[in-house]
């Protein structure tokens, strides 16, 4: 442990503080200032600035707030994911909100605050701080889900998310309490060091606490059987918000799970059984339910459940490899999933759209380039080479094979086989729909182009030249092990 951890050291949280300040500033001037576009740019500048500040912390592990906050490559890698997701969601949101007449300035600070919460979740080495981060993240998300104030679906989405979220938080908190009861501390580092002693003296409390914590995060990452809220919330929320939900809170949940279950409680090998049971359930239910969806947002909701399942395959193996593989996969998933959602946002911005899959009909005739990108993202989600989706899965499953979980890998690839069917169906509709069906044109704005370019580039680069990303992911480790 270095000396720094014995004091507060605000400077290690510069990116978070900066984001928070920008958010507050927008909240204050937003009431006076009517130019929403400028506020959107301001919020983007905040996110980009935080990204730059975050990059500067790379490879220089620091700790502060009496060891409760830990900035290491692990937290930075995930912070980059959250910030990228925030940037992309903001870019997608502006035109969408305007098209639907709900361009209220509060939206942008909400994204910033939620991002701050996630960053704190990934950077903390203490159960209480993780919980704090989770709450900072969740509350803005509840509001964002209900951003269509006059739409019952959006309200349902918000309320459902809130109630389920609160429910999950209760589990989490109770779990933390039990772990505290067993260990006498919420500091993950101390729990890790004393784990052997703790298991032999208060194993029951520790295990039940760990299970309850896992249930709490299971809700956040949408693992089956804690996934019931996902389809309705995803469908009702504004599409850019859904896109954000499908990536950022999930990555944050996984960051916390990795930090707690591979670092703090990494010695509890028995939990591996729970993880692979969850992995199989999550993959299978997600993929099978996705087949029957006619609404693309619901389909992508189930698909995001399935992707959480793939990550849990690596989690059931544990170890450093699982951390790197999950981190790499989440980064790749951020690009191709947000890319897919960007196209859904475009479709969904047209008036009268309900985001049914059939609305894609005739897309290849009217917008061949857009249809080609849609195909790219769908093939990436399905895990075809040479996209990032393939290499991500390759990396995840290689961890499972390495540890001898061949049967689990076979189940995972069979799931990925099932998923090919429903992802291809979207491509089928976009390409093979009858030529006589008119595809109402979508209006392209520069922002959405930027999103499409970023996500497509990410999807292809991480697929074709993954070496650099791979090296970063392998450096994505906890400090102080």
């Amino acid at each position, binding site marked *: 442990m270095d000396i720094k951890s014995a004091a507060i050291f605000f400077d290690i949280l510069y990116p978070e503080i900066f984001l928070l300040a920008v958010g507050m500033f927008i909240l204050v001037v937003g009431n006076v200032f009517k130019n929403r576009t400028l506020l959107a740019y301001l919020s983007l500048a905040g996110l980009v600035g935080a990204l730059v500040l975050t990059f500067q912390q790379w490879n220089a592990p620091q700790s502060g707030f009496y060891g409760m906050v830990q900035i290491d490559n692990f937290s930075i890698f995930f912070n980059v994911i959250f910030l990228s997701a925030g940037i992309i969601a903001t870019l997608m949101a502006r035109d969408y909100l305007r098209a639907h007449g709900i361009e209220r300035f509060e939206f942008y600070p909400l994204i910033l605050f939620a991002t701050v919460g996630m960053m704190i979740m990934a950077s903390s080495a203490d159960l209480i701080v993780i919980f704090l981060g989770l709450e900072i993240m969740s509350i803005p998300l509840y509001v964002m889900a209900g951003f269509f104030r006059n739409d019952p679906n959006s309200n349902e989405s918000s309320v459902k998310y809130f109630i389920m979220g609160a429910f999950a938080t209760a589990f989490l908190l109770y779990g933390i309490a039990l772990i505290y009861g067993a260990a006498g501390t919420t500091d993950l580092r101390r729990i890790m060091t004393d784990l052997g002693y703790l298991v032999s003296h208060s194993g029951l409390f520790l295990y039940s606490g760990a299970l309850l914590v896992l249930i709490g995060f299971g809700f956040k990452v949408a693992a089956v059987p804690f996934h019931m809220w996902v389809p309705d919330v995803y469908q009702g929320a504004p599409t850019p918000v859904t896109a954000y939900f499908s990536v950022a809170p999930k990555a944050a949940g996984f960051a916390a799970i990795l930090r707690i279950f591979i670092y703090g409680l990494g010695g509890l090998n028995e939990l591996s059984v729970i993880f692979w049971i969850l992995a199989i359930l999550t993959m299978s239910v997600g993929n099978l339910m996705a087949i029957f969806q006619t609404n693309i947002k619901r389909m992508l909701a189930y698909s995001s459940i399935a992707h959480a399942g793939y990550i849990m395959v690596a989690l059931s*193996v544990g170890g450093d490899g699982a951390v790197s593989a999950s981190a790499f996969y989440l980064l790749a998933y951020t690009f191709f999933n947000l890319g897919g959602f960007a196209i859904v946002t475009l479709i969904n911005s047209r008036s009268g759209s309900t985001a049914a899959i059939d609305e894609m009909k005739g897309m290849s005739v009217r917008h061949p380039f857009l249809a080609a990108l849609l195909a790219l993202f769908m093939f990436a989600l399905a895990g075809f*080479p040479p996209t990032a989706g393939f290499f991500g899965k390759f990396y995840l499953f290689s961890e499972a094979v390495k540890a*001898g979980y061949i049967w689990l890998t076979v189940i995972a690839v069979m799931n990925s086989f099932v998923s*090919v*069917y429903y992802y291809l169906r979207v491509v089928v509709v976009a390409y093979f729909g009858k030529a006589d069906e008119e595809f109402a044109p979508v209006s392209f704005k520069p922002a959405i182009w930027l999103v499409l370019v970023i996500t497509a580039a990410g999807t292809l680069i991480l697929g074709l030249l993954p070496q650099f990303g791979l090296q970063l992911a392998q450096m994505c480790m906890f400090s102080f092990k």
Partner: protein
Amino acid sequence: MEDRILTLVTFFPLIGAVLLLFVPKERDDSVKSIALIIAFITFLFSLMMYSMFDPVANGMQFEVNIPWISTFGISYHLGIDGISLLLIMLTTILSVIIMISSWNSIKTGVKGYFISMLMLETGMLGVFVSLDLFLFYVFWEAMLIPMYFIIGVWGGPRKIYAAIKFVLFTMFGSLLMLVALLYLMFMYHSFAGEYSFSILDLYKMPIPLGAQTYIFLAFALTFAIKVPIWPFHTWLPDAHVEAPTAGSVILAGVLLKMGTYGFVRICLPMFPEATLQFVPLISILALIGIIYGALVAMVQRDIKSLVAYSSVSHLGFVMLGMMALNVQGLEGSVLQMINHGISTGALFLIVGMLYERRHTRMIADFGGLAKSMPVFSTFFMIASLSSIGLPLTNGFVGEFLILLGVYKANPVYAIIGATGVILAACYMLWMLQRVIFGKITKPENEKLKDLDLREKIILIPLVILIFWIGIYPKPFLERIEPAVKNIVSIVNSSRTASEAGMSKGYKCVGDRCDTHTFTTGGK
């Protein structure tokens, strides 16, 4: 040049596809011409490669090996031997031909079609030049995407069903192959202390028989679906019947060969003991395929599905010859891969020409075409006879070598297999009789236009090849021979080793060498 030629041949079509993106989509003719020129230049490059290829040298030629994803020992490793050389030539020739053949038949989405075709060409060539298993897998899978679009967008009435079935069948196998690939990766790591996906490195690794059987099964299933070996063939008739003509030509001509090529390049030399175990099973499935394909072809009413089922039968021969595991059988098998590409490719082109004229492919709708279309009928006759395997045509050389090799290995298989040749004559000649001979029964058939110049240009190269291989196969066989001998010697040395109780250098006591643990394991 030596080290760049493979990259050039493989990726030139892809460069062309990217180039086509920038051509305005209204300008159909420019799109077609550019695609044709690109395919033709690729063909010229491959000719250059052919002339540079040293026929007597042993081992891989034009090797390139650049690290790609070094963390996992994945590299951009290309190289060819005689087997891949001929398959590459077949691919580049057929690609030029299909560009010309699609000139008038594709009316909608011209740009997308030619882009898909060029991407497909890169995918297929990539499979044949890869010496890195990961790279092989990437090309193998990536190739599905353009083919999916070709069937799904420009196909017949049941195109969506056929396209999805095609992708799902192929995916099912290849995902299991992915698991086997990962297993091999760690196995190699614990054997050599480093990661490598190089096929040549993996040849050297001893694999305990128990694990070898499972890995072999995963790879073999993937390839068997692609070949297709009976009973995994059900996707093939659907895909063929629904695909546009050029799609069928490529599917039959090249895509199916990827399966047989996989067996030759990966299954046989990498898992020789497991191969030996499965020789009877695969041979019997191949025999069933030969007979079943022929019998089903006989009762088809649609000429295209007749040709499709004949492919099942012919590919049965290829597999049967391969499983003889001797030089003649394997040589015949590889030559028959090329032959099947030429003659079945020609047949699909001919059926396509017929369809463009009459918009039907039903045998019953034709009759007496020899009178109205003499040139067409001549070509049809030649292609059919080559498909049957008449002496002086390419089919004869291939099937003769296969049956010779199989007879040496197991006479019973050879005798049963030979009936397939007779059945082929039955369905082909009977079809010819009903389509081009006899009286003209339908008034529509009286005034059909005979082949025009473009169509002759398409068919003439194939006819030349049919007779060339039929009369003077030596240049082809001598290029295949070193590669084939190499593979046969690997298999045979493991045969003698396993008879002596050794498993590719490993001494196995009971089942002990079957339990394999990795030294790199995680938690």
